[in-house]
């Protein structure tokens, strides 16, 4: 494992982060936008674990941060799904561009 440079793992996580960001900006389907956010959070998790393993193998801080992120992402997803279902009841659609009652 030590043959793989740290920067390569970080590149993978950065790629995930930006794929997620791209999805959030370009997709109109709310479920897909939610999944893009999950992608971003996962890229952060890989970062934490990689730093933990490569630079500070003596302590477990990065690992614990990741566990908290995973659990909180689950709670957040539940709330988001509840909001999306409510929106669907009112709009009969989960397209963000059809939810446009609020305009500048």
């Amino acid at each position, binding site marked *: 494992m030590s043959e*793989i440079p740290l920067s390569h*793992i970080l590149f993978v996580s950065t790629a995930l982060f930006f*794929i997620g*960001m791209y999805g959030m*900006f370009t997709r109109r389907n709310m479920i*897909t936008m939610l999944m893009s956010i999950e992608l971003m959070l996962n890229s952060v998790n890989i970062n934490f*674990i990689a730093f933990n393993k490569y630079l500070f193998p003596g302590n477990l801080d990065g690992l614990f941060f990741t*566990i908290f992120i995973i659990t909180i992402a689950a709670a957040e997803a539940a709330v988001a799904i509840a909001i*999306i279902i409510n929106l669907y009841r009112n709009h009969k659609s989960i397209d963000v*561009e059809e939810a446009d009652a609020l305009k500048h």
Partner: protein
Amino acid sequence: MSQYLFYILSLLTAFSAMMVVFSRKPVYSVLYMIFCFFTIAGHYILLNAQFLAAVHVIVYSGAIMVLFLYVIMMLNLNKESEPHKSNIAKTAAVVSGGLLLMVLVSVFKSADGLAINPAFDSQIGMVEVLGMVLYEKYLLPFEVSALLFLTAMIGATMLGKKEGGAQS
């Protein structure tokens, strides 16, 4: 050996993540997402975090993604939606994201200069060690995250239950 595994996994991760974003049908997105999560769990195992890999698969693939699939099924949302917003939003996203990406990649190039600590303890990602630290050092965050779950639970049930249906 693990080197090849890492590069194959990375390719698969990137590919499936892109398919999540580009698939037109939400169900395909969810399935690719589950695949993506499994490859990420593979990364965790390579990084010597076995417990985390298990938690990740259970929570993400087992709970969150099943929830998504369930919602898509229940609301019958698997319509092929026109997947893109206006071109302006797209170009803006690509340009700003690309700039930030370039900055980050150049930042990460310097990461190889950081002092890499070669100490290796195969037990460190195991449950016993984790439990000890979680209930000693991380006791308060653990309790506070319980507060967060309570909030999320009340919130989700409040949004979910029928208006005026639950009153006495």
